[in-house]
């Protein structure tokens, strides 16, 4: 693809972030969607078209890999590369939250 998306910049979209989190345990697509809905308490619900697009993207970028499954449903799990990108992204998000907290606390104390 000619244009740069966030993945090429090493940043994960919110949906990718949660999907990678879900795939720290091998799961198939629908279970990933359920898992994300559960851990975000319904805050994030991934649609099937978004899910399929993201799975293909993460596979292409080798952040996840298909597992040799027995059933017809394909299972995926995070790769070593995927885990390292996810960890970096967690740190990036954490730094953002800390920046925001520092500023908001300062304003609040005035």
């Amino acid at each position, binding site marked *: *693809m000619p244009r740069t*998306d*966030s993945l090429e910049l090493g940043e994960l*979209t*919110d*949906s990718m972030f949660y999907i990678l989190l879900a795939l720290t345990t091998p799961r*198939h*697509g*629908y279970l990933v*969607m359920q898992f994300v809905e559960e851990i975000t308490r319904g805050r*994030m*619900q*991934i*649609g*099937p*078209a*978004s*899910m*399929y*697009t*993201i*799975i293909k993207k993460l596979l292409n970028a080798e952040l996840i890999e298909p597992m040799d499954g027995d059933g*017809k*449903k*394909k299972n995926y799990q995070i790769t070593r590369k995927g885990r390292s990108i996810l960890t970096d992204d967690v740190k990036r998000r954490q730094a953002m939250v800390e920046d925001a907290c520092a500023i908001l606390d300062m304003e609040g104390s005035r």
Partner: protein
Amino acid sequence: MRQKYMSSWGLAFAEEREMRKLERMAAKGWHLKQFAPLGYTLVEGEPEDVQYSLDYRTRPDEDYFDLFASSGWQHVTSTGDEIHIFKGNRDAKPIYSDVETAEEKYHDMERQMGRAALILGILWIALFSLFQFEWPIVVETILIGVQLLVTIGLVFTGLPYIGYRFKRKRISRQG
């Protein structure tokens, strides 16, 4: 079973409008059966309160349809193994849940149409420049015929290209 034809103004321009129209038709008991040339074929049945969603995906695998089915979206019909229509209950969640992937829905179509329009556009200019010379009447007639076909092709790729591009830009502005 009675059937009905519903015309289409082109998915690049009227996708949302036509999906809403299909829903109104379903409420009256006319259900989408398949794509037809420049439109849709509807078949008569019981009235249903449903929603329709359309997706572009070149040669998807089984997992694709499984994901939709388990999210409450039943596959209705496809054309060219590329354009797919799904039917869901009123409470089915949107098939795209974030801006980043929604924007990509139109990306491939925009590129395909853009590429075709570009080639036809170059051809159009090349043909046009041939008219600067004197030609026997037979050759000139053939040239006019070809030019006409290329013009039609240019309209049917150029306009969808603009339509898809507009849709994609509109989605990314919402983000």
